[in-house]
């Protein structure tokens, strides 16, 4: 019960930021210098609300995980990555950051739910963008490791604190926890990724680097294609 209340508080806190931002953007409409600036503000409002809506959708998905409503199926992991990159490329460009992709996995299909996998990759990439320095790149890499398909999202930002790294090493994150060295983070994205991964029988984890962090998910490859 306590962790549930804590989760609600974290979710409320996480949603406060985009709502506050939308409020300021609405005020900004009166201060736009020309039509181009007005369009710029409007596109920012759409971006901010899209991100907030996605977070709400993810939270509602968590509530529905127990009902087993998300079907597991063979999913083309590269296509999902491509879709995420396509959706986020404007946001990365707007924030003067770059997202590079590197696909070197042989198994193209993984056992997953497309919606949940999309959310995990999206959260990792958004996190990488947020915590990377300006004019730096983030990397999305697909590879094969120990019979699994591994997706890494690397950022060049502050290192992940030991306690969060340890809790990830010991399994899935059980409740949202603020990440002290990553200000503004409630750990909600990591919690959502953990929940979705658990549902898909996948592992999530993190690797600490001297100049940033990689978050990864290891998925089971689908053997369906090998039947042909």
């Amino acid at each position, binding site marked *: 019960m306590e962790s549930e209340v804590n989760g609600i508080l974290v979710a409320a806190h996480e949603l*406060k*930021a985009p*709502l*506050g*931002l939308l*409020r*300021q*953007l609405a*005020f*900004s409409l*009166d*201060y*736009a*210098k020309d039509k181009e*600036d007005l369009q710029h503000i409007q596109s*920012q409002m759409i971006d*901010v609300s899209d991100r907030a809506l996605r977070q709400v959708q993810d939270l509602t998905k968590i509530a529905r995980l127990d009902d087993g409503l998300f079907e597991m199926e063979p999913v083309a992991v590269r296509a999902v990555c491509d879709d995420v990159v396509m959706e986020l490329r404007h946001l990365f460009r*707007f*924030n003067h950051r770059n997202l590079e992709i590197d696909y070197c996995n042989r198994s193209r299909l993984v056992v997953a739910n497309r919606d949940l996998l999309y959310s995990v990759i999206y959260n990792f990439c958004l996190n990488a963008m947020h*915590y990377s*320095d*300006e004019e730096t790149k983030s990397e999305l890499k697909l590879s094969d490791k120990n019979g699994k398909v591994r997706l890494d999202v690397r950022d060049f*930002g*502050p290192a992940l604190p030991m306690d969060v790294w340890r809790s990830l090493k010991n399994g899935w994150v059980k409740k949202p926890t603020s990440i002290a060295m990553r*200000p*503004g983070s409630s750990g909600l994205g990591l919690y959502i990724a953990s929940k979705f991964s658990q549902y898909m029988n996948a592992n999530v984890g993190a690797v600490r680097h001297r100049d940033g962090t990689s978050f990864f998910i290891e998925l089971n490859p689908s053997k369906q294609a090998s039947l042909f």
Partner: protein
Amino acid sequence: MIYVIDDDVIMAECITRVIAQRFPAEECEIFTNGIQAIQEINGEVKLIFLDILLDGPDGFAFLNELMSYNDTAKIPVVIVTSLKIKQDLSGYGVVKVLDKSTMKPEEIVSIAEKYLCKKPLHSDSIAGEAEK
């Protein structure tokens, strides 16, 4: 020159947009972290809008740095944050704390008016100038 230090560029742009419209002669510069801002700051900066939760060193670390230099110690600072700050930060040059979720553009204008010692342009006069 006015500095706006916020890791959220959209929020920083909202502040600079208000200032640019009401005080067109003032130059605004956005920084997404305190390190870069403290490297470039000098005594010509008249006002700083500062977020607390920044990437890297936080706003309090920035305030400490600011206070430690002779030429920057007296620059007025406006904290713009969603944190509830109860302690008195006037000793750090903080002249006002604005809540990100409830602040209004008029508050930014009135602070800027006070510390830049300039009268803001009003919306009507701006519209009039645009028509000319």
